[in-house]
């Protein structure tokens, strides 16, 4: 079982987001970067599948050298080797094209992505990657079991869930449920030591072009101060919801 986990290097969930002067990009100063939380569920799932079926877990990301600590963290958690596609991506379709170009012919049985990254919230790469590789795709995947060359998956739907079967290789857009929060692994000292010597290959890009670009980033307008209403006067809340907010 050869498993690839696609990882995004993203600001920590609690990071204060600031944009550079001119608002053209994220200002990374003072921001702690982490493995995208959706990808963490996928990485743990990949390690569990390797323990059950044997094989290897490779992690891949697309970024410049500043993303390497995130790849080393994935190696410390238990991945066997890492690949960095050397460049700075600006568009989801560009990322999907470069990932597909790398993956073609490598013989991966399973490719796990997070269903979206918590930075740009695109959610496009997993499906686009599956289409470019002409492989089956399960998004919002909250359960996955393998039997021989068959996968049984569970996906989240609006207000429910759906079971699916597909043949490997398969591309998954995963989220919590793939494994539980309590199963997530953190690096131990031995993991951190061995991660230093595990292979991290730096691979050149094939020149896929970006189809979109960010013209500007702004922050949402700050919310007006809360209107506190005395708990003995709930009719007043109802009145304001009706007359001011017009939501009832």
């Amino acid at each position: 079982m050869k498993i690839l986990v696609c990882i995004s290097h993203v600001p920590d969930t609690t990071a204060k987001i600031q944009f550079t002067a001119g608002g053209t990009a994220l200002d990374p100063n003072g921001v702690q970067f982490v493995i995208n939380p959706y990808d963490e569920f996928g990485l743990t799932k990949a390690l569990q599948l390797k323990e059950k079926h044997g094989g290897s877990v490779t992690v891949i990301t697309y970024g410049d050298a500043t993303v390497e600590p995130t790849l080393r963290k994935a190696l410390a958690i238990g991945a066997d080797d890492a690949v960095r596609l050397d460049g700075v991506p600006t568009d989801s379709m560009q990322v999907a094209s470069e990932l597909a170009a790398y993956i073609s012919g490598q013989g991966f049985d399973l490719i796990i992505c997070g269903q979206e990254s918590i930075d740009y919230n695109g959610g496009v790469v997993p499906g686009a990657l599956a289409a470019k590789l002409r492989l089956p795709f399960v998004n919002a995947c909250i359960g996955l079991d393998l039997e021989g060359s068959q996968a049984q998956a569970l996906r989240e739907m609006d207000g429910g869930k759906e079971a699916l079967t597909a043949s490997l290789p398969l591309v998954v857009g995963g989220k919590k449920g793939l494994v539980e929060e309590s199963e997530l692994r953190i690096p131990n000292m031995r993991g951190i030591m061995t991660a230093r010597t595990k292979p991290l290959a730096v691979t050149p890009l094939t020149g896929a072009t970006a189809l979109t670009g960010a013209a500007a980033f702004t922050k949402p307008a700050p919310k007006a101060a809360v209107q506190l209403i005395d708990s003995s006067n709930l009719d007043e809340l109802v009145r304001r919801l009706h007359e001011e907010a017009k939501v009832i």
Partner: protein
Amino acid sequence: MVLIFAETWEGTFKKSTFEAVQYGAACAQAQGTEAYAVVVGPCTPPVESLGAHGAAKVIHLHGTDRFEPAAFASAIASLAKELGATQIVLSGTANGKSLAGVLAAEADAAAITNVTGLPSQFAPLTVERSAFSSKGIEQCTSHAACTVLVLIPNALGTQQASTQQAGFEDRTVTFEPRSTPGLAQVASGKIPLPEAERVVSAGRGMKGPEHWNLIEELASVLSAGTACSKPVSDIGWRPHSEHVGQTGIQINPQLYIAIGISGAIQHLAGVSGSKTIVVINNDPEAPFFKAADYGIVGDAFDVVPRLTAALKAHLS
């Protein structure tokens, strides 16, 4: 021209479908072109009724009765190419999100998701989207000949429908799924959270799952969906499918009532698109009050039943 994927669920249009059709029609009008909708699979309401939301024509594709991303994407992409679509509009429902990336790749299109408004210009296409879990707003530009635009459900709302009928055409096509959908379990009678216009949500302040009847009664009076915080789903008081927040479901209702939820930044990331936020918490220092429009400092077990009664009196 603009092509809209008019999603159906159990043979009927979803509310978010009308929003997507109206959005596509507005894009078409701004460019002096027409909006066509594509319906895939069984559909009970007459497909020409989408004319009421601005579709000039509806193409109804027959040949499958289950959603499968590869099969749907390939059929919609060939239609988009045949018609020369410059935008393909979808609603960001669960199926819409599954479809977006696959469809963009099949249609040789760019993809812009989390769209929150109409394009500010069409040459090049520039549109506002939400990024950084609602902590940033991006003006995103597409340089591709065709762009898949995925809307955040409820972000724009639906306008009054007209009585206009669309032209329609039935076609039978061969679908080529790459996976096999099996058993689907959907909670019956519940409003899917991403579509709910009102959501009542509760956290650990409810002290235990046995007290959720208070939340459900309030939700029922408001015809609202019910949701919960991450700790509540992690400890199993409520199903994961109700967890709203950064790694759960993102929602954009008109009204969000948060009861006994402190308002961690990860929770806010999933709900800050709500138009009006009401926070009920016994801790006046709860950070959620800073993100709220209306706040009530008080004990949920005292406030919620009285609020339910007050709303019932108002709405009756």
